[in-house]
């Protein structure tokens, strides 16, 4: 049943996100090609700036949009299908509540990750080519090969680095992923709290979100202070604190998920 839920959620959301990903790819390719083409046509720096700057600006906007849009869209879909009228269909499916929340969370996370990756790739591509062209170079095949070679060297070096550094990299990657999941699950939790209200449920969710954010900010501030006090001692101490932060983020994810499931299972309040 969980597989079917995930499949249905992917099918229902695929069109929107594939368009977003396509826009990211098209933008990256278009700006890169136009920069290369324009760079080969003129040597006038002012004219080149005029062409590349708007695409640089748009590129820097696209990445945050590609990351934020799926989070908001996922939240809106969650509200509609779990707390609004569509909830009558969703909650009447013969599946436990944890599966409903889990399937939506997993699909939301995958789309946020994918669109962020494509948004970032598109941004990097447009920025790199524009910067090279603005620097007065003609972008050639050897430039592209040089970039690939540099990437390869970085990876090779990465394999021989200090295990403590690898640990930091893994921890940072993990905490980034967990933070992303937490950002989605915390919105789900706020929607679960907001639906308890008889009226103005969206307002209730927004207020719950502000309240939850206030608590989170206090926690993060305390963590940062601890981080500064303890982590500067040594790389090992830094890693211990970082691991604790990762664990704490994971614990917050689990708490948000469990409370959301509890509220929808025992306190469902469809109008």
């Amino acid at each position, binding site marked *: *049943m969980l597989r079917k839920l995930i499949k249905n959620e992917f099918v229902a959301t695929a069109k929107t996100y594939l368009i977003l990903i396509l826009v990211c790819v098209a933008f990256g390719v278009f700006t890169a090609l136009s920069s290369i083409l324009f760079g080969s046509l003129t040597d006038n720096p002012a004219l080149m700036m005029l062409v590349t700057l708007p695409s640089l600006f748009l590129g820097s906007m696209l990445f945050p949009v590609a990351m934020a849009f799926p989070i908001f869209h996922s939240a809106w879909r969650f509200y509609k*299908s779990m707390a609004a009228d*569509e909830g*009558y*269909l969703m909650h009447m499916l*013969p599946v*436990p509540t944890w599966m409903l929340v889990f399937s939506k969370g997993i699909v939301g996370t995958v789309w946020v990750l994918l669109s962020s990756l494509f948004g970032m790739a598109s941004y990097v591509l447009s920025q790199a080519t524009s910067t090279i062209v603005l620097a007065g170079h003609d972008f050639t095949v050897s430039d592209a090969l040089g970039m690939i070679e540099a990437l390869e060297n970085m990876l090779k070096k990465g394999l021989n680095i200090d295990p403590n550094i690898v640990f930091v990299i893994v921890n940072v990657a993990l905490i980034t992923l967990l933070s992303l999941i937490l950002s989605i699950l915390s919105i789900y939790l706020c929607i679960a709290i907001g639906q308890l209200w008889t009226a103005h449920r969206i307002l209730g969710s927004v207020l719950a979100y502000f309240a939850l954010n206030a608590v989170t900010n206090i926690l993060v501030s305390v963590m940062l202070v601890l981080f500064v006090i303890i982590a500067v001692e040594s790389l090992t101490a830094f890693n211990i604190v970082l691991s604790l932060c990762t664990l704490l983020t994971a614990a917050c994810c689990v708490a948000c998920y469990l409370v959301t499931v509890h509220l929808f299972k025992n306190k469902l309040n469809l109008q």
Partner: protein
Amino acid sequence: MNTQNVTDSLNTPILTLSGVSKSYGNAKEVLSNLNMTFPRGKVVGLLGPNGCGKTTLIKLICGLHQPTSGTIILNGIPVGPESKAFISYLPERTYLPNDISVSGLMSLFLDFFADFDAVRAENLLTAMGIDLNARIKTLSKGTKEKIQLIMTMSRRSPLYILDEPIAGVDPAARDFILDTIFSNKPPESTIILSTHLIYDIEPVLDDVIFLGRNGVILGGSAKELREHYGKNIDQLFREVYRV
């Protein structure tokens, strides 16, 4: 399942409520100590004025709400995720997701409800002139309500729960709704039909339950009640709920 088991399961009630109460927070109880048994193969009218707890009772049976106390047994199992496979529920609200097509909705029902009869649904939808490829969001409210009814009645469930299916519709739509319900109901299935519009459905009711703020006011066979009180159900309703 052998023949004896089939016979046994058909003899057991489809739904049993024992000591079911429901209150919201510290507010007064909406339902208090309900004890009811619903036999199989009947059409039961759940009658009462607005706010008497009909929808709350339905949500408890559907597992959308949890009772404050008491137990609800549906088709031999306590109400929970598994029991939802045995209920085909038509709520008052339009629940169709806007971002899929009519055929997508059918796929969703096929995926999750083993008793969904896709051929029947397709025939009914086609007879209504509904395009299976149409996106739900492009359809009118009336068409969405028809699709919802067709999807509900295209399941071969032991229990159908229809919450105010004819409220706020014109007479032609009312005829369509009642015809769709009763021409698609399997004989062994039970229908619980909640309404305050008694006149139109009275001829099809086998049993009635008059629900009040303190529980069941009156209940039993529609025929016996008519004979006993010398009034039809509509007249009885007006008398019971007279202010």
